[in-house]
């Protein structure tokens, strides 16, 4: 009984949201109703992998392009962020040196980084990766740093007592002890990377969910905007859940 209710309640929530959406669409002229959105979008959903033109593709293909871009930007971001996080966690001097810069860079929006990327790299693709990396790296930096600082004195004592070399201490104690924190950082970073992708695709006009959204806005096909928004939400949700599962597995150790 309780399980049935647990399954039913989210569905009720969805139905209510659809009702509100439908109600709004009768009041706002350009807002398509749920049914109209479905009618106009179903070709993208029913033919998920069909490629008809640069932007005119199945929604799964578009999402795939965006995911690949996000993955590359995210990997670049955490490749920079993880060593930086370890450095800041282990050295108070480094923290004092770089913390102010970090606090200033952290709140900068992807829309602000992208033009700089375009100037630096002169092409839209590397500029997008740059914006994703530089926006998404901070949670990983901060969590890795916090993880290193949270290593119990016991473990440092083990390193001292066994007279482990700095490299062994790092590989056998610091990294495993920090791993759960790092993964929390990765998860948050991936969430941000996914937020940034849309902005960067909109500005650079590259094929992907964000690029599609922008093109359909320019073509005045508003139903497709809603399709893109929903896709972004669903993919983001799935990504977060997958990272959450990986994180839970790590914490279980």
């Amino acid at each position, binding site marked *: 009984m309780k399980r049935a209710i647990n399954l039913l309640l989210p569905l009720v929530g969805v139905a209510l949201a659809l009702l509100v959406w439908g109600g709004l669409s009768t009041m706002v002229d350009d807002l398509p109703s749920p049914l109209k959105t479905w009618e106009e979008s179903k070709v993208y959903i029913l033919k998920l992998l069909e490629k008809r033109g640069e932007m005119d593709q199945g929604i799964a293909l578009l999402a795939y392009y965006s995911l690949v871009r996000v993955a590359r930007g995210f990997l670049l971001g955490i490749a920079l962020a993880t060593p930086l996080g370890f450095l800041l966690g282990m050295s108070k001097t480094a923290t004092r040196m770089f913390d102010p810069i970090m606090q200033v860079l952290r709140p900068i929006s992807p829309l602000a980084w992208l033009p700089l990327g375009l100037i630096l790299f002169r092409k839209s693709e590397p500029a997008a990766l740059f914006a994703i990396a530089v926006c998404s790296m901070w949670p990983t930096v901060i969590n890795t740093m916090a993880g290193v600082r949270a290593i119990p004195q*016991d*473990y440092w*004592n083990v390193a001292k*007592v066994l*007279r482990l*070399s700095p490299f062994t201490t790092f590989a*056998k*104690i610091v990294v495993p*002890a920090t791993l759960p924190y790092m993964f929390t950082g990765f998860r948050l970073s991936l969430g941000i990377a996914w937020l940034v992708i849309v902005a960067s695709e909109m500005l650079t006009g590259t094929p992907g969910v964000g690029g599609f959204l922008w093109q359909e806005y320019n073509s005045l096909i508003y139903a497709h905007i809603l399709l893109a928004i929903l896709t972004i939400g669903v993919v983001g949700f799935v990504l977060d859940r997958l990272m959450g599962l990986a994180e839970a597995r790590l914490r279980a150790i």
Partner: protein
Amino acid sequence: MAFIEISNVSKSFGSGSKKRDVLTDVSLTIERGEFVSIVGMMGCGKSTLLKIVAGLLSPDAGRVVVNGLQVRGVQPNAAIVFQNYSLLPWFSALENVRLAVDAAFPEWTKDRQRDQASRHLEAVGLGKALHRRPTQLSGGMRQRVAIARAFATEPEILFLDEPFGALDALTRESLQQELLRLSSTAERPVTTLMITNSVEEALLLSDRIVPMTRGAKPLGHPVRVDLHRPRTAGELMHDDRAAHVRAHVVSSLTRDLKPTTKQQVA
């Protein structure tokens, strides 16, 4: 010259009005191969003293000399067993011990290191739990792993920081016996300094017992425990010499408490 010489060691923590003198002017010597226990109540600074002698902390004043050399950092021939086991939870029992063996004997082959580690785990009765993680082991088994890790590095000096404090009485007794056996069968004589709050534990294991209280000159007169080995807890209960040592240790531990009792009576 004694093997371990602790001379006029002082240590305080904090600064300004929060400054707390934990150790003031502590001196003690330990001979090679001796088993010395420092017995004291909680908060008397015995753990700090052990950490200083072991090289985990440096003293504010005074010095510790081991085998003619002043201690700076943990010595290569020393092993420490902590009350809270200090095992790495992401490694199995075997991997925890191997890490120590690898650090102590880097020139050995991997096979020999592995053999050394598993042999010492078997010696403490963990032959069947080699691949279990610390979280899958009971407290007693974890401390066995920690003891195996200490002996696997073939130490000359063993520091024991309330090693059995977190264990139940029965487990404690069997581990105490195992520790004695390992010490007596080690390839080179092991000099041991143990910190404990249990007079009985000190009686069972030590050659000498040093009572420790709070305040300046915290170490009382060391008492020699002239009892044959191996000892058992049961024997100690009825032995006159043990009773004598026990009385001495307890009286020096409660020395500071007596005036307050008298005042209360008056």
